[in-house]
Structures are given as C-alpha cells and as structure tokens.
C-alpha cells in the first residue's frame, strides 16, 4: 500500500507532463467539455425556465443539482479515463500485457496510465455552478453539511469508476463492450433531474439497480429541501461500496481469463 501511495504522484506528474507537451490541444479538450456542459445546461435552463417550476424544482435548484452532478463525474473522468480503453477493443490489442510483466497491481497501472485533463472542463463548470447558484437556493451551510457533501463527492466518484470498470471488464468475455458501457454511463444523466418525473420502473432502476440517483440526486434533494443529509450520505457509501465490490469481482475474474488467453 505504501509503495502505491509513493508511486501514484510520480505516475500522475509523468502523465500530466506528457499531456502538457501539447498545451494548446489540452486546452481545446478542456474547453470542449466545458462548453458542452454549459450549453447542455443552458438548454435545460431555457426548458425549465418556460414553466414556474419542475415538481417544486426551480431553475436555480436545477442549476445547483447540475453543478453537483458534474463534480464527481469530472473527478472520475480526470482520474480513470484509461478504463474506456478496455472496452474499446483494447483487450484484443493486448494493452494489459505491459502491466502484467511489472510487479504492480495491473488495475492500479491501468488507472494511473493517464490523467485526463479534459475532465477539468467539467470540474471547473461544476464548482462554478455550485458557487453561482448557492445564493439563489435555500441552503443552511454548516460544517456538517459541507463535510457530508465532500464524503458524498468522493463516494459518487468511486461509484462512477466502479460502474465503468464493471462494464469495461465485460470485454474480457466479449472483446468489445464500449456501446453497452456508454449506454450505462449515460444513465447517469437521469440523476440530473428530479427523480419524481420518471416512470416507476425507471425510478426503481435508478434507486436499486444502477443507483445513480442515490449517489447524486438524493443528497442534493435532502440539502435543498431540509432532509437528513447524513442519512443520504450513508446510502451513497453503501451503494458505492457494493458497486466497487461487483466491479472488482468482474475485473478479477476477467483478468484471470486474460492471463490464460496466452496472447
């Protein structure tokens, strides 16, 4: 464990240096993700702006929720973007070979391979939204609330990561799973909206099967409508822990197959 903690910053700085050697390209990528989310939110803003409120959520609350949704997603995007390579035919190309000959955990090596600067576009926008919309919504900020949100962000980020890893690992069996992985990842978009607007079946999926609403929407709802924030944080931790368990299981079963493939 100590070894990994020592190696992590070295890998990270190496990756950032590599990316910054093309500074303008990195900037275009960051700006791309920023403008994409800004325009998607502007669309939502204009949509919800045409009515008084959406099930009790006005545009400012929607903005706050959108900002919160962006932060864990962005952190995961920055820290573990390399996982997409598995599902994109990377397993067939043998991208794991170089990890398996080193005395380090292959999953660790896969994740630290690349720091994806583009994710900063989403992160900057997310933080901006939280700051910008806070004065327009009714939140009583306490140390406990802020701490709860931080715990929530960390575990939501892990949830995104675990979801990606689970569906990327399917590629060990199917050689390619990027379409399925993208679809599942897109499910996170449901969490940008009040869950009450969806059909019961979708609500069930978002709460118990792919609990994106649990890790993003419910904590924000508790915060804005005076619910018990820590209770929601508990659910976030449970959901993320379960998902991480599943993802590590699928990954470890998959990597066993990879070794025996003899490629």
């Amino acid at each position: 464990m100590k070894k990994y903690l020592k190696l992590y910053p070295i890998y990270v700085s190496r990756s950032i240096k590599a990316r910054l050697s093309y500074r303008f390209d990195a900037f275009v990528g960051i700006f791309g993700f920023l403008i994409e989310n800004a325009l998607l939110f502007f669309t939502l803003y204009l949509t919800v702006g045409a009515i008084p409120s959406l099930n009790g959520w006005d545009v400012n609350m929607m903005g706050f929720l959108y900002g919160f949704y962006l932060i864990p997603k962005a952190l995961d995007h920055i820290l573990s973007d390399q996982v997409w390579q598995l599902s994109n035919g990377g397993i067939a190309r043998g991208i794991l070979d170089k990890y398996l000959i080193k005395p380090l955990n292959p999953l660790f090596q896969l994740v630290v391979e690349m720091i994806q600067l583009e994710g900063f576009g989403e992160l900057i926008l997310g933080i901006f939204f939280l700051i910008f919309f806070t004065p327009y919504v009714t939140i009583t900020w306490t140390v406990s609330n802020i701490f709860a949100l931080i715990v929530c962000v960390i575990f939501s980020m892990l949830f995104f990561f675990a979801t990606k890893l689970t569906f990327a690992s399917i590629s060990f069996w199917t050689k390619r799973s990027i379409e399925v992985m993208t679809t599942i990842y897109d499910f996170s978009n449901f969490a940008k909206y009040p869950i009450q607007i969806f059909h019961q079946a979708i609500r069930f999926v978002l709460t118990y099967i792919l609990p994106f609403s649990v890790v993003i929407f419910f904590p924000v709802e508790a915060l804005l409508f005076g619910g018990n924030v820590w209770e929601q944080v508990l659910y976030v931790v449970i959901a993320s822990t379960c998902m991480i368990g599943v993802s590590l299981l699928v990954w470890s079963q998959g990597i066993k197959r990879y070794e025996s493939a003899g490629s």
Partner: protein
Amino acid sequence: MKLRRLRKYWAFSKGGILSGFAYKFSAFGWLLGDIVSLLILYFLWSAIYANSPVDVINGMTFNEMVTYLIYARIASTLVFSSISFWIVGEDIYEGGIALSLIRPMSYRYRILASSFGNFLSTIILLFIPLFFVANGLLYFVLGVDLPNILNLLLFVVSAILSFIISDHLGFLIGEIAIFTNALFGLMLIRNIMLSFLSGSLLPSAFFPEWLQITLKFLPFQSMIENPILILMGRIQDIDILYTILIQFVWVLVLGFLCNLSFNKLKKHIVSVGG
C-alpha cells in the same frame, strides 16, 4: 460541371457509400444509447407540460414538441453524417493533403463527394428505418398524424442542402487542425454548437430574444430546425420556397468561404514543404 467531370467525383461518393456501409452496423449499438436520452426527453417534457399552467408552450403542444424533438434526433443523423471534418483534419495531421493537391481535381469537391456517399449510406441504413419506427411510435402511442408526401419530398430537398451546409462548416472547422491536433476536442465543440444552435436540442422559440435575432443571420437554423418545420407542415406554401432559398444562399456563401480559406491554407502548406 460537365458530366465527365461529375463522374470522376461520383467514384469518391461510391467509396463513401461503401465505407459507410462497412461500419454503420456498429452504429446500431450506439442507437441503444439514444434510447436513454429519448426516455429522458420524453419524461422531462411530460413533466414540463404537466407543470405548465397552459397547454401550449412557445407555440407548441406536447405532441408537437415530442414530434419535433424525435424528428430532430433523427435528422441529426443526416447532418452529422458529414465526414469532411475528419478527412481534412486527418489529411492535415498526417500530411496526406500534399498528395491530394497534385490530383487533377478540386480537393474540396472530392471530399464533399466522399462525404456525400456517407450521407447516402446514412439515409439508407439509419434514417429510413428510424423514420419508420419513429412515425409508427408517434402514430400509435400519441396519435400524431403522419407527415404528408409533399412535405416529405420538400424535406428531402431541404435535408440535402442542410447536409451540404453542415459539410462546409465541417470543412472550415477541420482546417483549424493545422493549428492543433486536438481533433476530438474540436469535434466536441463542433457537435455541441451545432446541436444547440441548429435547434436540435430545443426549438429556437425557447431562446432569449437576442439569440433568436442573432440566429436569423447565421446558417444554423437552416440545418435542423427549418427542414423539420417543413416536414411537420409548420412552414407553409411560399415560405417553404423562401426557406429553401435561404439554405441555397448559405450553401453558396459557405462554399465560397471553403474555397477562399483552402487556397490560403494551401499556400501555407506549400511554404512548410508539405
């Protein structure tokens, strides 16, 4: 354009059709992902209308809104089937552009021809099946009338012009690749700007007034919103001709800009020696 010259370009269109067919089948995998966004759209708009004190928002009823958004989603496949952006970007990036310049044909028209081939394969493999499914759903689930044949034909004319406008814009943005290799980032910016400004995410009636006025002087609305309003029969009689004429003007203006910028770019390429 003499017929013989056209035939030369048609060879590239055929190539575009064939390569389009080759990888379109993975596109069906991507359509799965579209189901998620369509579900979100449907429930979001149901909730929007349920929360609205009036039945008509910005001139559209719920059924019209859903029809518009589904058509927009399908028409987007046509507009985004333009691949000139990628061809130019990669030619500049890999230096293939120098080779293209010694061929006895216009570079711009050659890749427009390839791109048009991809457009045709998109119509056959994606647009037509999706259009049937969508209209079936709209008819049986919401009771929306099917589009009439004349409007459909006018839409096809309009869609071809939309595609050329989109391809010209793609070419212009692709030329930026000479300054940066971040094709993925450029693509992201291009796609979201096009989606938003062309009205494929939201009809422009929802936009603030300053933006609506600005858009009147830009080509984006000619790309998705206007063709769809023709298809839905919301643009009538003489206005249809007027709409198509405006599209035609944009084709000419942007085509001129493509040639102008490419001639400048060519000098730059020659000066760095290929």
